[in-house]
């Protein structure tokens, strides 16, 4: 039973680290800053949550601290992504399409 749980946990951990790799790949490949923020935070958040879930399968006694870290990641990653995108927009970083609907609205809503 414990061996089966460890195997399932290692599989989920591997899937999570693959998402971390895809996040790094998106950061490497994407054409402009906003796309990089998107790829870098969404895929990495999912990857971190999956690795924490895999760790909870491998060490069931650690669930409380793992849940604490997972809640922290869920709350803080979207926040830092939004603050970074707002900083990029206010620093007048252009998107690679050249379209800026937020500036066309006339006021800084971000």
């Amino acid at each position, binding site marked *: 039973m414990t061996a089966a749980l460890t195997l399932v946990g290692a599989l989920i951990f591997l899937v999570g680290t693959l998402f971390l790799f895809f996040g790094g790949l998106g950061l490497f490949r994407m054409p402009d800053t906003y796309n990089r923020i998107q790829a*870098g935070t969404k895929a990495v958040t999912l990857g971190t949550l999956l690795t*924490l879930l895999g760790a909870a399968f491998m060490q069931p006694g*650690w669930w409380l601290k793992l849940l604490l870290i997972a809640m922290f990641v869920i709350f803080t990653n979207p926040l*830092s992504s939004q*603050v970074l995108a707002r900083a990029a927009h*206010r620093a007048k970083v252009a998107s690679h399409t050249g379209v800026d609907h937020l500036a066309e609205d006339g006021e800084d809503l971000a």
Partner: protein
Amino acid sequence: MADLLMFFGFVAAAAGFFLALYRFVVGPRAVDRVVGVDVLTIIAMTGILLAALISGREIYLDIALVYALLSFVGVIVTARFLEGGEQ
């Protein structure tokens, strides 16, 4: 079997780490570098989690939590600093 899967997971996370490190070094804008630091610290947090799993010590999870907290505060402060325009 589980050890082999976790080794492959370590390799995938390390590959993602180096791709993010490329973005941190090359840039080209300051915001790109901050995104790179964000992803680097989160992958490093997963590395601390892996160290906790391998050594079997729960106390390492506290270090991972504090590391995530510090990286979050650092990213927020740097982003607020960059809002006034870079350089």
